[in-house]
């Protein structure tokens, strides 16, 4: 880390993690300064201020100077996520169309894990007594049939007031087609209940489907009174300390937005933290010269899989946060329950299982010695020699191999025999398979071939699995960022400001429709331009992308096509091709339906490139010692494997596997013939040795 002087103006990114708050500053010359300090989960703002003070001191600047010369201050926050996870949101009221009070609670009558019919649903965010109907009706065409009476709305407001409601969501039938009735309700509510947060579905998520829209609007109301005051206080405090610009926040879609703009849609912060983290992937794409990446981030409880295609993080229209559905554009993170603490065992029919239960932080894996006696993935890694025994994290954690082995032995010897190594190897292989299935799911859903992608290993345990998984999937290149936390904050520094605007269409594709689509797209672009103007962008530094979502009539999962100017023949041709690419079939006789359109309005911050260091000469990396390690899942013995110390390694160092690199917070394992090299920025770039005919399925 450099502690030299930095040149104004600079940009600051702050990512608040569970343990550390990471700060990155990029100055006008592209020099990077990174700083890390402990988070304060009870009041994250304190952790942020602490990081700023620490960074200022390190740079020999006053806090006022550090903030005063900051041109863009970008922040990824987990506040909204935590409100939803901990169910600590506001007392929320909901206004629905008369007759549809229970849309939220009926939940479309669907249970994804149907065979598990005994597990209760979590309570909905608004109890029935606060879901109040209003006599009104909008038709599917957008034509009003019955307008809500002002007196009726005022009566509902009084009920809410008496109940101490802090926020109100309004979601009326067909409001995506015409939001006028919702606006009438909102105006009266705002007048009758000053200070109470009011949000309407037609502004927040104008999509067809009253359940999804209601759920999203309710979530927005539920988090707003907990999230917005906190962020405003933080913004005020930063201004008081010298920040001259608005605080920018990372949304679930990965784009940044001003605090003023997010005030209408705080639910768009539901994945702010992880989305900010994924910003680093775009940057890795730049570093590797391959903008197609798949990342596996494996921590204690889970493995998050994300795809970056041509530099864009894959997106989804809906996310579920602890059973609360939020239909706002978001980065797509596919999570499976495969993490270091995942418990393994033998079922009552004699087969092995890995998960879904986890040991958590306490008691944690058996090898922690905190009372856990069930073997976990971490125990298996330790027993195979892949993880080092002894103390970690400055002595706060100690891994005891004998505890791992005895837990494995007690659990598996009746089925797999005395060799605990066999059991451990089997567990690793099964968990690798689960990770492969997850990668297939996120890539095949888009018709992508993982073999053309770089696999990025992140999180405490990602780098232990990444090389073997890549080999199994025919992926030739693996990347392990050295300073993951800093990378997130760095990626955020380059996040663009972004607004997504959607409109439901729901009509057959033909020439007339195409003409009106062009008008609709322009209207959305104009709306986006107005919002970007409020963020301080001029047309010179804004960019618009247009997407048309289509399906064969009757299908439920539309395919999005990026378009410039809608044209019938062109859309038809491209849709058929895309359908064939993803699903291996096309239906040339089927009518095409345009489900909706979307415009992303992007305000581009000037890109800060890293100052590129010189490319070093390759030189063999120093080996610290050799350790007995069992490498693959095949039945087989152990080898003496070279162990390298991460902090010793510098750009240009390389090693040919098998080898292990030990970093403070992660361990990298490469297999026979794999070649690991430290890139000019200090990251691990690994070429995977694929044998010819390497399986891509097993």
């Amino acid at each position, binding site marked *: 880390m450099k502690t030299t002087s930095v040149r104004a103006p600079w940009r600051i990114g702050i990512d608040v993690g569970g343990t550390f708050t990471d700060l990155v500053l990029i100055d006008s010359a592209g020099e990077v300064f990174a700083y890390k300090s402990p988070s304060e989960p009870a009041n994250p703002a304190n952790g942020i201020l602490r990081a700023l003070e620490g960074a200022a001191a390190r740079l020999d600047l006053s806090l006022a100077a550090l903030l005063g010369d900051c041109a863009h201050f970008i922040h990824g926050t987990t506040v909204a996520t935590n409100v939803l996870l901990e169910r600590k949101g506001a007392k929320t009221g909901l206004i629905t169309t008369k*007759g549809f*009070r*229970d*849309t939220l609670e*009926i939940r*479309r*009558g*669907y*249970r994804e*894990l*149907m*065979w598990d*019919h*005994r597990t*209760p*649903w979590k309570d909905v965010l608004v*109890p*029935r*007594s606060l879901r109040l109907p209003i006599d009104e009706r909008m*038709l*599917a065409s957008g034509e009003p049939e019955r307008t809500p009476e002002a007196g009726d709305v005022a009566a509902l407001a009084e009920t809410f007031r008496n109940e101490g409601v802090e926020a109100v969501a309004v979601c009326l*039938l*067909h409001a*995506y087609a015409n939001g006028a009735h919702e606006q009438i309700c909102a105006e009266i509510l705002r007048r009758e209940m000053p200070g109470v947060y009011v949000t309407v579905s037609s502004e927040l998520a104008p999509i*067809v489907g*009253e359940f*999804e829209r209601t759920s999203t609007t309710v979530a927005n109301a539920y988090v707003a009174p907990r999230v917005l005051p906190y962020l405003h206080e933080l913004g005020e405090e930063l201004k008081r300390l010298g920040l001259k610009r608005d605080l920018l926040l990372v949304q679930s879609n990965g784009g940044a937005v001003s605090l003023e703009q997010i005030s209408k849609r705080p639910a768009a912060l539901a994945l702010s933290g992880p989305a900010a983290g994924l910003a680093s992937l775009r940057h890795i794409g730049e570093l590797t010269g391959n903008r197609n990446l798949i990342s596996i981030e494996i921590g204690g409880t889970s493995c998050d899989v994300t795809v970056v295609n041509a530099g864009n993080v894959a997106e989804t229209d809906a996310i579920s946060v602890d059973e609360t559905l939020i239909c706002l554009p978001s980065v797509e993170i596919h999570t499976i329950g495969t993490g270091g603490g995942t418990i393994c065992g033998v*079922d*009552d*029919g*004699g*087969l*092995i*299982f890995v998960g879904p239960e986890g040991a958590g932080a306490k008691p944690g894996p058996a090898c922690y010695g905190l009372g856990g006696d069930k073997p976990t993935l971490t125990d298996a890694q330790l027993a195979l020699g892949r993880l080092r025994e002894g103390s970690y994290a400055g002595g706060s954690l100690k891994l005891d191999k004998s505890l791992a082995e005895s837990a494995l032995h007690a659990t598996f010897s009746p*089925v*797999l*025999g005395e060799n605990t190594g*066999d059991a451990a190897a*089997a567990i690793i*292989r*099964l968990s690798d*398979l*689960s990770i492969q*299935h997850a990668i*297939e799911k996120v890539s095949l*859903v888009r018709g992508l071939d993982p073999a053309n992608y770089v696999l990025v290993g992140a999180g405490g345990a990602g780098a232990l699995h990444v090389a073997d998984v890549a080999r199994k999937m025919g992926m030739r290149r693996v990347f392990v960022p050295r300073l993951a936390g800093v990378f997130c904050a760095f990626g955020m520094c380059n996040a663009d400001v972004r607004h997504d605007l959607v409109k439901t269409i729901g009509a057959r594709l033909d020439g007339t429709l195409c003409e009106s689509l062009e008008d609709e797209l322009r209207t959305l672009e104009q709306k986006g331009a107005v919002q970007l103007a409020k963020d301080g962008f001029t047309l010179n530094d804004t960019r618009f992308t247009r997407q048309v979502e289509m399906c064969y009539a*009757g*299908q*439920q*999962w539309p395919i999005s096509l990026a378009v410039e100017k809608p044209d019938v023949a062109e859309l038809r041709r491209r849709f058929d091709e895309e*359908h064939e690419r993803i*699903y291996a*079939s096309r*239906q040339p*006789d*089927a009518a095409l339906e345009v489900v909706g359109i979307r415009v992303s309005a992007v305000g581009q911050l000037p890109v800060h490139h890293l100052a590129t260091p010189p490319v070093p000469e390759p030189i063999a990396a120093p080996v610290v010692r050799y350790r007995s390690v069992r490498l693959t899942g095949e*039945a087989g013995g152990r080898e003496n494997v070279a162990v390298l110390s991460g902090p010793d390694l510098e750009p240009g160092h390389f090693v040919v596997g098998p080898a292990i690199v030990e970093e403070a917070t992660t361990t990298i394992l490469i297999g026979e013939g794999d070649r690991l090299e430290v890139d000019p920025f200090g990251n691990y770039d690994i070429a995977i040795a694929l044998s010819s005919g390497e*399986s891509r*399925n*097993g």
Partner: protein
Amino acid sequence: MADAILTTLLQNQLDHISQQMGWVMQRTARSPIFSESHDFSCFIADAKGQLVSVADGIPIHTGGGGFAVEAVLRDFGSELAAGDVFILSDPYEAGGNHLPDWTIIRPVFAGDRLLAFTCNRAHQSDIGGGAAGTYNSDATEIFHEGIRLPVMKLAAGDALRMDVWRLLKLNSRCPHLIDGDVRAMIGSTKVGERRIAALVEEFGIETIESTFSAILDHAESRMRHALSGLPPGRYSGEDASDTDCFGTVEVPVRVNVEVQADTVKVDFTGSAAQIAGFKNSSLANTYSAVYVALLSFLGTDIPRNAGAFRPVEIIAPEGTVVNARYPAPMTSNTVYPATEIIYAIWKALAKALPEQACAGWGKAAHCISSGADAGGDTYVMYHMHAYPGTGAVKGRDGLPSLGTVITLGGMQIPNVEVFERKYPVRIHRQEMRCDAAGVGEFRGGTGIDYEVSVLDPATYSFRGEGSRTPSGFGILGGGTGAKADIAVRDADGAGIDVPQYGVQSLPPVEIAISSTAGGGWGDPHKRPVDKVLRDVRDGVVSVDAARMAYGVSIDPVTMSVNIPETAALRA
């Protein structure tokens, strides 16, 4: 010993493949019944026709697919070739469960050796017969229910036989949907074939074949282990319908469940003779219903393959409602009598393990309407918003509206907004009922008040199974859920008499359905007072019912609990 590892690996891989087949089907099919409601199942069988992976699909399809693969082997076993695709549906001749479910079966070869079958069973939008949308409640013979498909070769060398293709489309009122949907089915089996071929390349055919049998053995031992948790004994159960579709008549399904160590005999001797209407079961469907009853009661993570079924002996006397003789109609069987079969077994098992018992889910009472859409194509609309409430179990109240027990909640109810865009209807209400749920420590699902105006003349197939007798039975002192009610009025508000079952053409009408509520579990006096108060505040339990049924006294004005009075009521 390494076998356990390989078996686990391959089982995970095969389940992944059948799920992937389902995923392709759901995204490429065009009928709402697949793309929205997932009324299909993808599965993989071994070369003998034994199901090895049934990881995808709705519960009532569980296990029945084996009969279909066996029929393919019987009719074409000696001449199967790579690139063949078969289709079948007939429950009497071809191992089908009921006519609307068409099954696509593709043999998978390794070289010239038959290794497996990839299969997709899916409920078609329309197959001809006496009513649009496959449910002809007037049927008295299978010939009234639509086209019967024996095992037919639909493709050879992966090329469609166009004569057969045209026959299929010609016999449907919705040929455009059949075209897209059956292509999607074929595509899903092709994806399964490709993935299995890759497995063969990696592991070799011998390993795969031996692992298939290890996978089945594993499921068998899981099932035996689960069965050994039941106290040995002979437990009886009965659940009845009150109609044969033409008149009021008791149609009981009677079962004796005999548990011996780690096996179970499920004997339907004594059940009603087959009936005139279309609620007769095929053998394939009865087996499926038995598996749903046992697996949903015993545990959720037993692999649902042919191995798990080995310790289960089923006796279904021919000529009864659970194993009807040709030419009895049977399109309704996946719902009724499947529901009666499941409930009879649940009631028997409740005697064995009361704590684990499941209260009854309401039987549905609704209708299907069909007519011509704006473009002249036939539309078929299932009035799914009137789905019944579920029964309670210990630890969970019933859910308000969740399809029927045969799907266990695996079918999604479409949004009202989508229906209003697609069909000539205006829906006015879809809300939880008050005081309908079976009372209990855990109360039943409320059921739904549903009101709709159908704006154009249409044809209706009424299916009012739950509208005469309450069907959401209670457990351990829990109450029975209220029955359903259906009222139909014309534009002037005059009532129209509609049958419990039957097909009618009607002018524009208003329909109001109060759907069946689910049964409760346990003594209602043990329900926590704050939960009763919440139900009252929510308007799903009245102040009177709180007092009478739950022993909780609540002031209707202040909505506060009178604690001394409550203590006295509950004493």
